[in-house]
């Protein structure tokens, strides 16, 4: 499964190769854990800066060890298991949340090719032939984590939270998938390594520009919703649902959810960088991936932009109402990404077809919009007429 593009496996699999893969797995795991530690601190610090507060500043320099302290605290707290809970599912749910978050990270190319102990290998844990579809699969599995957690808690708020979660994540998955499809369409390959190398020749080849911004924007919005991050955090809306799906969780199991949430944030940002911003390639033209330092640096720099953006969104926007959320997902993002996918497909066939489809789509959209307006006003008229009639009678 991992074989595909990595030069590591060209000479067959022996002990050294297995060892390298194990080391890579360990390093990726640790890197992700550290990035979560960083992200939690970064988010708290940045949000407090944006709200004119100080934020964590007690544990370590600038409070950098705060996350570690919180983790240790959670570790020693009592692990509650509600009487009404479905014990097995309740215990399983946190793992359904965290394992996909980590696995999805495995397909992200972090840098170029490096040589370890005479073997060439990519700075990418796995490059399965299903490529980017693996991400979609994993983010779908993560829905089960949230959904089952709420359902198995045997309590109403978690249940409401998980109902919201499943509805939200399923609706936004469509838009997410369609914008990924746009990327796959122009790349002609599902492999993340191919997607990245397609974009590596210069900055104008980044999918962000090549696909005309729209899939990028849609992916970003849908990913935010998929991650349950503000302003799409209806799943754990504290003001309405206590803690949402994780209300009944405490101690280490809660920590796993917490970890999974931030891990997914980092993973999703990494995927955005991979799909639309050329992954580890710099802004200038570079031939393939020479060396290890520069590509990783570019990758991390781009990653930081999105981590910052997620925190910025959280600090700025209030939570969406449920119907607004559904409106945005079903009535705006999905039609828009479908339309753009059609345009892109036609463009690849022939430029002229592309423009025809574009113009046709615009006209059709306007007609549809007009139809909806007219329909709405007639129903409104009918409703007011009926109300008047009732009043008179």
């Amino acid at each position, binding site marked *: 499964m991992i074989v595909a593009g990595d030069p590591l496996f060209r000479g067959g699999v022996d002990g050294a190769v297995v060892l390298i893969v194990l080391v890579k797995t360990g390093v990726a795991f640790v890197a992700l854990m550290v990035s979560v530690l960083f992200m939690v601190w970064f988010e708290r610090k940045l949000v407090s*800066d944006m*709200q004119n507060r100080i934020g964590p500043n007690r544990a370590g320099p600038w409070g950098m060890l705060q996350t570690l302290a919180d983790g240790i605290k959670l570790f020693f707290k009592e692990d509650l298991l509600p009487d009404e809970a479905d014990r097995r599912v309740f215990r399983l749910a946190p793992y359904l949340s965290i394992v996909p978050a980590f696995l999805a990270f495995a397909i992200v190319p972090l840098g170029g090719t490096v040589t370890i102990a005479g073997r060439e290998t990519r700075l990418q844990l796995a490059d399965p032939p299903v490529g980017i579809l693996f991400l979609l699969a994993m983010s779908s599995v993560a829905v089960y984590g949230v959904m089952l957690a709420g359902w198995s808690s045997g309590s109403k708020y978690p249940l409401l939270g998980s109902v919201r979660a499943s509805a939200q994540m399923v609706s936004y998955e469509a838009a997410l998938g369609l914008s990924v499809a746009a990327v796959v369409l122009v790349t002609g390959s599902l492999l993340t390594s191919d997607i990245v190398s397609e974009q590596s020749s210069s900055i104008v080849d980044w999918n962000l520009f090549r696909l005309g911004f729209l899939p990028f924007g849609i992916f970003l919005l849908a990913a935010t919703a998929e991650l349950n991050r503000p302003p799409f955090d209806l799943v754990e809306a504290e003001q309405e649902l206590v803690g949402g799906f994780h209300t009944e969780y405490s101690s280490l199991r809660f920590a796993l959810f917490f970890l999974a949430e931030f891990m997914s944030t980092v993973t999703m940002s990494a995927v955005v960088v991979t799909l639309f911003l050329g992954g580890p390639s710099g802004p200038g033209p570079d031939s393939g991936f020479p060396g290890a330092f520069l590509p990783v640096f570019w990758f991390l720099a781009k990653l930081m932009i999105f981590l910052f953006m997620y925190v*910025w969104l959280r*600090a*700025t926007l209030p939570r969406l109402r449920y119907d607004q959320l559904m409106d945005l997902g079903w009535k705006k993002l999905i039609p828009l990404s479908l339309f753009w996918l059609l345009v892109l497909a036609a463009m690849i066939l022939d430029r002229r077809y592309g423009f025809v489809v574009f113009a046709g789509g615009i006209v059709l959209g306007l007609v549809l919009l007009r139809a909806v307006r007219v329909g709405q006003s007639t129903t409104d008229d009918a409703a007011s007429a009926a109300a008047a009639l009732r009043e008179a009678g």
Partner: protein
Amino acid sequence: MGYLDGFKVTFKTLFDDRVTTQYPEEKRPKPERLHGRHVLNRYEDGMEKCIGCELCAGVCPARCIYVRGADNPPDAPVSPGERFGFVYEINYLRCIHCDLCVEACPTEAITEGKLFEFSFTNRQDAIYTKEELVVDDDGRPRHQPWEDWRDGEDVHTSAWVRATAPSGAAEFEGRVQWSGELGYGVRPPEAGQSLDQRPDEEKPL
């Protein structure tokens, strides 16, 4: 672009100055008349001012003061006059720092210090006796190990007395109507009480 204004606001705030005081490391100056932990004052010659009249205990709404007076021993009097405060206890688990005891006191014996940052780990420590309350030989409040005193915080121990005119009559403002204190002598009246006469750091925020 109504949608994006919010982003501008949060981004700008990122670079704003913080107004938070880093509390345990740095403290804002305390107002001169703050009601803190009490002190029992002494005259300039070292005699205690308390005469054991129990007016403070009588007026205390929280019933946190316990006083017992006794006759001064003729050969070694503790206070000038007939009686002195033999037992004087304040229970700080009950005290609400209302300052009524200070108002009631006929000899300015009890006044409020500026200390409020004290926390004890047992109830016995919460009951301050004469040992803790009476000022030391320099006229300064005695420091207990569980009290957080910083430099200069033990200077103002009787500001309220000097700030208030008898019966609240304005014409008495600035007139010395109080006795001397051990270590300080007769303190000058508080600087002008109108807002524009006060130094900047004491102005309300």
